[in-house]
C-alpha cells in the first residue's frame, strides 16, 4: 500500500494534456500517479473509504456466532452515552445479537440468515411450503423477465438446495452458520437476494420511482445501487425484498440523534399479510447502526 502512494517525477507535457482533456473524455490514472493528476472527487474519496472498510471487514466472519446484549453494550463503554442508553432499552426486549461482516452486503446476508433460521426453527409445514413456493416464483416468473437464465440459475439452485434441506429437517443451527460463513455459498445466497430485489424493482418500476432520491432510470439505478456485490441496501431495498419474498422484517434504527431512551422500529410487512392482520412468519429483527445491519433476537 505504501509504495502505491509515493509521488513520482511528473512528465508535465503528458500531465497537461490529460488534465486539459479530462473535461471531455475519460482518462485512466495508474495508481502510482493518481495523486499527481487526478482530480479529487467525492467518488474517489468514497472508493478509498470503501477500500479501508473492506480491509477491516475481512477480519470479521461473514456471519458471527451470537453475543449477548452486554457484549454489545461494552462496545460503547468508552463512547456514546446515547448509544449506551439505547442498547439498554433494546436489551429489555432483545437478548442476543448476531453480527454480520460490514462488506456492503450485510443487509442481504443478515436477511438471508435470519430468514433461513426462522424457517429452521419453525415446525409449521405451511410456512415452509409458502417459503419454497415464493422462492420458486421468483425464479420462474420474476427473474426471467429481466435477466438471462444462466446468470442466476446456479445461485438459485444453491439457495433452493439449502432451503429444502432446512425444510426437510436436515440442517441444525451449526450447519446453517457454517453455510453462511462459507464465502462462496454465502455470496451466492446474497447475490440471489440481490437478483430478487432488482427484478422486483424493475417489475414495479412505476410504484417505486418516487422513492428513488435521484433522477435515474430503473436499469441504471439497479446497476449502480443493487446488482454489484458491494452495493449497500437502503430503505427501498429492504421494502422491496420483504415484499418480493413475503418476509416481514422489523428494523431497530439506532442513531445518535433521537430521544435518549427510545429506539425506533421500522416495520416492513408484506402488504397482503399486513392487510389481513395475520403474519404467518414472525418478523425477522435486524439492528441498524449507520451504514450497517446485524441480527437481533427478541424475547419470545
Amino acid at each position, binding site marked *: 500500500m505504501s509504495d502505491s502512494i509515493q509521488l513520482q517525477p511528473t512528465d508535465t507535457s503528458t500531465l497537461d494534456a490529460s488534465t486539459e482533456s479530462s473535461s471531455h473524455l475519460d482518462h*485512466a*490514472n*495508474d495508481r502510482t500517479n493518481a495523486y499527481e493528476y487526478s482530480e479529487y472527487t467525492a467518488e474517489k474519496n468514497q472508493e478509498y473509504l470503501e477500500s479501508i472498510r473492506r480491509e477491516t471487514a475481512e477480519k470479521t466472519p461473514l456471519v458471527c456466532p451470537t453475543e449477548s446484549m452486554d457484549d454489545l453494550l461494552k462496545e460503547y463503554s468508552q463512547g456514546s452515552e446515547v448509544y449506551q442508553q439505547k442498547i439498554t432499552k433494546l436489551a429489555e426486549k432483545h437478548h442476543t445479537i448476531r453480527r454480520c461482516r460490514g462488506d456492503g452486503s450485510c443487509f442481504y446476508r443478515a436477511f438471508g440468515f435470519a430468514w433461513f433460521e426462522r424457517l429452521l426453527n419453525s415446525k409449521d409445514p405451511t410456512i415452509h411450503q409458502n417459503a419454497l413456493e415464493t422462492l420458486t416464483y421468483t425464479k420462474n416468473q420474476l427473474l426471467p423477465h429481466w435477466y438471462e437464465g444462466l*446468470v442466476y440459475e446456479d445461485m438459485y439452485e444453491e439457495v433452493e438446495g439449502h432451503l429444502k434441506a432446512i425444510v426437510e429437517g436436515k440442517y441444525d443451527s451449526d450447519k446453517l452458520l457454517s453455510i453462511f460463513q*462459507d464465502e462462496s455459498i454465502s455470496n451466492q445466497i446474497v447475490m440471489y437476494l440481490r437478483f430478487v430485489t432488482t427484478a422486483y424493482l424493475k417489475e414495479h418500476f412505476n410504484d417505486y420511482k418516487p422513492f428513488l432520491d435521484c433522477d435515474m432510470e430503473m436499469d441504471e439505478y439497479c*446497476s449502480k445501487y443493487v446488482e454489484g456485490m458491494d452495493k449497500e441496501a437502503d430503505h427501498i431495498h429492504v421494502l422491496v425484498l420483504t415484499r418480493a419474498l413475503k418476509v416481514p422484517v422489523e428494523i431497530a434504527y439506532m442513531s445518535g440523534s433521537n430521544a435518549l431512551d427510545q429506539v425506533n422500529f421500522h416495520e416492513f410487512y408484506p402488504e397482503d399479510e399486513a392487510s389481513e392482520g395475520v403474519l404467518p412468519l414472525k418478523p425477522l429483527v435486524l439492528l441498524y447502526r449507520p451504514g450497517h445491519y446485524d441480527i437481533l433476537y427478541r424475547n419470545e
Partner: protein
Amino acid sequence: MSTTLFSKRLSKELIDLKINPPAGIEVAESDTFKCWKLSLDGVEGTLYAGERFTLEFRFTPNYPMESPEVVFVGNIPIHPHIYSNGHICLNVLYNQWSPVLSVRSVCLSIQSMLSSCTTKEPPPDNNHYVKTAKASPKQTQWSFHDDSV
C-alpha cells in the same frame, strides 16, 4: 464450492455463445476456463465496419462474483476509450461489474461502445498511460467521466 459455480457458469456461457452467438461475436479460443478469446467484428455502417478485433477474457475462480479481466489483443481498435496496449476504459469491467453480467453482455457493451464512436482517435493520455500501466487493467484506478462516447 467457488470452483463449482465458476466452472458451471462458464460451461453454460460457452454453450450459449456457441449455440446462439450474438451478431459479429464468435468464440475463437476456449480451451480452458482461465482464458478465452473472442472475435469481434466492427458493425456495418459504423467507423469499424470491415475490421475484426480479438478480445481476451481472463477469469479467476471467483468469477462471476469478480469481474473478468478483458483486453483487446493483436489489432487494437483506435477509439477514445481504448488504449493502444489493449486496455479498455469501460465501467462495467471495473467498479460497475456485477454477476448479472456475462461474457456475452460484456462483448455487446464493447461492440456498442465501438459502434457509437464518431471519431477514430486514441485516448488523449494514451502515451502516458501505456508507459505507466500495469499488465492488468484491473490494477488501474479508472475514472469514468463520459458515458456518451
